[in-house]
């Protein structure tokens, strides 16, 4: 992958948001979570256990920089500064490289906790579709992890696999989902599991003149199948939710639901008062970390480091 290429089809849109209904100055406990993933990084700020702001950015070569950038984005246009944050927890693949964090917690625990907040206490299985891994997690009504299975060794079924495909077929990643349904009939899925072999298979199909959208559908189906294999090994229970970037790709999600014969929960906030707020499946890990931070300080298990 060359930096600065003219067409970067994998380059998904970054995002940032601040809760208009919260005045941080009135809050007593301000905590943050920073999730440095292999592909994306998120910073989330929580005021007294309520979502205050988030930033979602692409992870660069330097993990500490990506951590800083995501939290700077979350603090964004607010006048809240880092020294006013009581406690910060780092999570994700690059969690040891979060300079502003006082401690780290695994992304598995954080995703379950974050999903519990976002989708509600009925959540029992969380599928976190990360950039370079995917994790199927079973949890209880408090968002506590019961057991999990993780593929972190193979690009098939990860966000990275989808990015490689988007670059190959020269279609932006966010168009993959919608275009995968612009077909006459569902094609057979790409038969190679391995992303490298799938690339050759896709090149072959393109040269045979198979319509591009059919190939997109075939790739989405293969990815859904790969994820299903992991979920079936763990055992999937409703309420079933998907977090991470691939959750935004309906081409994969709809086909996964069909294979599993289980619906994924709607991507809307569980709390009715959050209805108007944007819902970003990628913030689950950082949100979970910020919520852990809040609970730890509140319960006296961690000391506030607030300076101002």
């Amino acid at each position, binding site marked *: *992958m060359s930096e600065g290429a003219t067409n970067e089809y994998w380059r998904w849109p970054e995002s940032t948001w601040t809760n208009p209904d919260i005045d941080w100055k009135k809050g007593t406990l301000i905590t943050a979570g920073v999730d440095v993933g292999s592909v994306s990084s998120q910073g989330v700020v929580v005021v007294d256990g309520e979502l205050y702001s988030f930033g979602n950015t692409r992870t660069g*070569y330097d993990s500490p920089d990506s951590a800083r950038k995501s939290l700077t984005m979350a603090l964004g246009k607010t006048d809240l500064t880092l020294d006013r944050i009581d406690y910060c927890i780092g999570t994700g693949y690059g969690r040891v490289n979060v300079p502003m964090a006082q401690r780290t917690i695994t992304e*598995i*625990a954080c995703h379950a906790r974050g999903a519990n907040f976002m989708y509600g206490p009925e959540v029992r299985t969380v599928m976190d579709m990360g950039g*370079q891994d995917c994790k199927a997690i079973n949890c209880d009504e408090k968002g*506590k*992890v*019961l*057991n*999990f*299975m*993780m*593929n*972190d*060794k*193979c*690009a098939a079924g990860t966000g*990275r*696999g989808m990015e*490689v495909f988007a670059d190959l077929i020269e279609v932006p990643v966010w168009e993959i989902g919608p275009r995968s349904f612009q077909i006459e009939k569902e094609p057979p899925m790409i038969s*190679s*599991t*391995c*992303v*490298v*072999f799938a690339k*050759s298979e896709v*090149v*072959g199909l393109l*040269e045979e003149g198979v319509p591009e959208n059919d190939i997109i559908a075939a790739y989405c189906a293969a990815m859904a199948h790969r994820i299903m294999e*992991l979920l079936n*090994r763990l055992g999937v229970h409703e309420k079933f939710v998907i977090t991470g970037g691939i959750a935004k790709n309906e081409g994969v999600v709809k086909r996964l639901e069909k294979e599993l014969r289980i619906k994924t929960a709607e991507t809307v906030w569980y709390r009715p008062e959050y209805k108007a707020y944007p819902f970003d499946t990628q913030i689950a890990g950082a949100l979970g970390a910020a919520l852990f931070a809040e609970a730890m300080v509140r319960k006296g298990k961690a000391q506030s480091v607030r300076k101002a």
Partner: protein
Amino acid sequence: MIVAGIDLGGKNAHVVVLKDDEILAKGEATTGIQKAAAAETVYDETLKKAGLERTDVERMVATGSAGKRAAFADGVIPDAAADVRGVNRLFPSARTVIDVGAEEGRAIKVSPEGRVLDFAINEKCAAGAGTFVEAMARALEISVEEMATISLKSTKSIPMNAQCAVFGESEVVSLIHQKVAKQDIAKAVHDAIAGRIASVGRIVGLEQDVVVIGGMANNKGFIDALTKEIQIDVIVPADPAFIGALGAAVAAASGVLDEKVEATVVEQETVTEGEA
């Protein structure tokens, strides 16, 4: 009697023409996507070198992952069946054949008569095949040949964490950023693939003599790493990429037009389990 064999693989085609057990001509070509057409061309060109035409050939047998695309062949045999015949023809003492091509890694236990006794294959994952090394060479921005040469100069053992070829490319890029010498990265790549190939080999046992064939056998860096990994000196034929085609021709000479071979399919484990 004139017979011929073609090995139509994932990337390349190899042809061998035999006359009464003697090699008359050899030919090779990169096939790309249009494998059937490429096979026709390379077959005709090889025959031409020997001053022959298709009608001069008594029997022609194809092998390789795309063997069925060779429309002119009288029969198709699996790679393993061709490998053992080709190796046995050159090295009757061989008891294990390791064949590492672009898209698969195989280990075959071979009988003194040149028949398949046991067979294991990894064909589902690029991490266990030559494609992995090609991808890492691309990330290093050097040729596979150069990578093989420089890796022999390395005295360091750096582990590669990535198993997947896609993740491996990122890891190589990050090692370059950390200013790790290219020769050490090259050795790490060869050590990694050698480890995976060795584990396929251990499934069938690594009885000596061990002969390594396929495109990767040309890679001295890989052969060095494999030798150290399995602690056995291996034999590499002069033209390792032609063994499959030679074996197909040997099969054609003995009238073998098809053969069933059962394999243990090796899959890389990718899942980690955990409890809270």
